[in-house]
């Protein structure tokens, strides 16, 4: 019987079925961060249990690190205890830590792939809902809570109920300045914030094949915003060459052997998915969220909904989102003044994201009164961006250039907006108060964010770049 790639990975990693009917799925790579791991270390120690495979486990300092140049533990005072507990816990448990001053520190979902820890057909777990970012390389990744994290540390497996499968086919060719972020936002708009709940999503189709690996990671990153259990793109030659030569990737004869195996990792023709969804991306324009969840999305030339014209069941949610966001029914978003622009996070902080933003910022200036900030996803990305002169482009344009970390995505490090500010952001959640109390977040691509920063108003990057902005 034809199998989906998800079936194949699941089956290959199934260790046993537990007495309660859950499948024990082996976790090939486990990446921790300091916001949740310290509690799990403590849980394990109370239970007198040890970490089964510290050699397959890695620790990152990302959520609470300050982004200010010259930072240390004390720059974000509330982070210090987390950083120390992570440091101590990783040492006690013999886990390799990428500490705040490590030349390869960064956001777990950015660092793990760029160091070659993430491999096609492998399983991956992170105590963070954006774990499936690394699905861009064909890995099956699960986000988990703290107790599950302790469970993986002690056993190296997750006890899971098997999710359903879903195929999202992205057809057509993206127009200039339209990115994976725009595609992902459109999918969430179509399927809703619970649209992929209980499902593992495979993204396929011509538009996906044409995406860079970094763009595929952006696409898979946002899978959780429609409730997906995991999401991935089957690895292809582009993925294999992306991985080859990275520090933790297999080498020499083992590389050849791995590669031969990876080339078999596709869904079979005729494989059955529990659900399928198709999106033609050809006519897609840059997208932007208008509301307070990631499904409340518009094309950049669109108008926000009018609660009076929608059915009663949806009316209250739309009214409440409009009120929080300070918007009037039926208005256009393009042209709306902004206070802050953030470019970064596990969604959009890899080198091509920064290049796309720099291409827009080059030779322009951040509008007066706008605070614009770029935070690379890892210290490696930061170095590469600096080698390419991108930091110069951003600084010359008036952007702040930070040290790597999660930063303003969730504000766990103190980076956040002021009450009432309108913030255009390349992150993944526009929930109320997420980027600071009463901050109004609009999610966009890096290009749209940069265009907005220089315009001082929500901008259509296509117009700016064609000289009509």
């Amino acid at each position, binding site marked *: 019987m034809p199998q989906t790639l998800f079936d194949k990975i699941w089956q290959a990693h199934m260790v046993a079925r537990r*007495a309660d009917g859950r499948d024990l799925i082996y976790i090939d790579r486990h990446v921790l961060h300091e916001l949740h791991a310290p509690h799990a270390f403590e849980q394990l120690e109370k239970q007198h249990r040890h970490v089964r495979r510290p050699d397959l486990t890695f620790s990152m300092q990302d959520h609470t690190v300050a982004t200010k140049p010259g930072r240390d533990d004390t720059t974000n005072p*509330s982070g210090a205890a987390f950083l120390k507990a992570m440091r101590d816990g990783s040492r006690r448990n013999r886990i390799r830590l990428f500490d705040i001053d490590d030349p390869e520190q960064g956001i777990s979902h950015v660092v793990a792939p760029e160091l070659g820890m993430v491999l096609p057909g492998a399983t991956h777990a992170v105590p963070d809902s954006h774990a499936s970012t690394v699905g861009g390389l064909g890995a099956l990744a699960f986000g988990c809570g703290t107790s599950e994290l302790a469970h993986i540390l*002690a056993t190296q*497996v997750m006890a899971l109920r098997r999710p359903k499968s879903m195929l999202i086919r992205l057809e057509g060719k993206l127009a200039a300045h339209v990115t994976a972020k725009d595609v992902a936002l459109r999918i969430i708009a179509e399927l809703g914030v619970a649209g992929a709940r209980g499902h593992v999503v495979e993204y396929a189709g011509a538009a996906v094949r044409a995406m860079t690996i970094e763009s595929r990671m952006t696409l898979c990153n946002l899978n959780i915003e429609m409730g997906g259990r995991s999401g991935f793109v089957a690895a292809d030659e582009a993925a294999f060459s992306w991985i080859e030569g990275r520090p*933790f990737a297999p080498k020499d004869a083992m590389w050849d052997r791995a590669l031969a195996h990876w080339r078999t990792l596709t869904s079979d023709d005729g494989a059955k998915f529990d659900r399928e969804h198709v999106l033609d991306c050809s006519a897609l324009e840059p997208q932007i969220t208008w509301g307070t969840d990631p499904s409340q999305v518009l094309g950049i030339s669109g108008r926000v909904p009018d609660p009076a014209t929608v059915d009663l069941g949806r009316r209250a949610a739309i009214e409440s989102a409009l009120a929080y966001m300070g918007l009037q029914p039926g208005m256009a978003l393009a042209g709306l003044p902004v206070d802050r622009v953030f470019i970064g996070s596990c969604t959009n902080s890899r080198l091509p994201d920064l290049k796309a933003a720099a291409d827009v910022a080059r030779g322009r200036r951040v509008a007066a009164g706008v605070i614009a900030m770029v935070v690379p996803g890892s210290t490696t990305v930061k170095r590469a961006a600096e080698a390419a002169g991108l930091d110069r482009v951003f600084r010359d344009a008036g952007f702040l250039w930070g040290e790597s970390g999660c930063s303003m995505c*969730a504000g766990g490090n103190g980076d956040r907006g002021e009450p009432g500010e309108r913030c255009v952001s390349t992150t993944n959640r526009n929930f109320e108060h*997420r980027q600071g109390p009463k901050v109004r977040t609009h999610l966009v691509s890096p290009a749209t964010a940069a265009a907005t920063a220089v315009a001082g108003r929500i901008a259509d990057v296509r117009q700016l770049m064609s000289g009509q902005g």
Partner: protein
Amino acid sequence: MQPFTTHTGIAVPLMRDDVNTDQIAPVQSMRSLKPDYKALLFMRARRRDDGSEDPDFVLNRPQFRGPGILVTGHNFGAGSSREAAVWGMLANNIRVIVAKSFADIYRENCLQNGLLPIVLEPRDAAAFADRVIAVNGAAPFTVDLRTQRISGPGGADISFDIPAADRMRLLEGLDDIGLTLKHADEIASWEHRTAADQPWLQAAVDRRL
């Protein structure tokens, strides 16, 4: 884990869909390794702009100050994987959430902590929500996991379904890691087999070192 057999408490109606973990346990409330989990629950909704208590928020109303059961809409617990969003419930003695549906990770976090996540049949869910609103905290409801029934004022008992395995785990307060470690031999043999068949999976080595 604390076993769950029955729980009696005031049922609080929070009749909204897509309540997310940033609402339940804002990240700004987790600035210390040991935050006040009782206070962080719905921290933002509880307070007005001037810092005073918002008397309109349901958990601030006098009749709901001692909650026991939360009744809510679809996709409860969407967003982050942070377990504080469950610990905050327990710190407030909320040991049952009756939702129209749960976000996947949130539901797992409930099961890990002896918090019973109940999804009623759509018709029962609507009727139960109406009843909870009508009772308005005047008397408690009792949830019995052994009989899979909810009883209380204003109507007949309601039965609910839950996967048998989840039910057993909650009833017995089973140690999840302990359950898995019964398969330690199978884990070891999987590792052994994979080290031979796909050695790259079992070796996460920095090849520069």
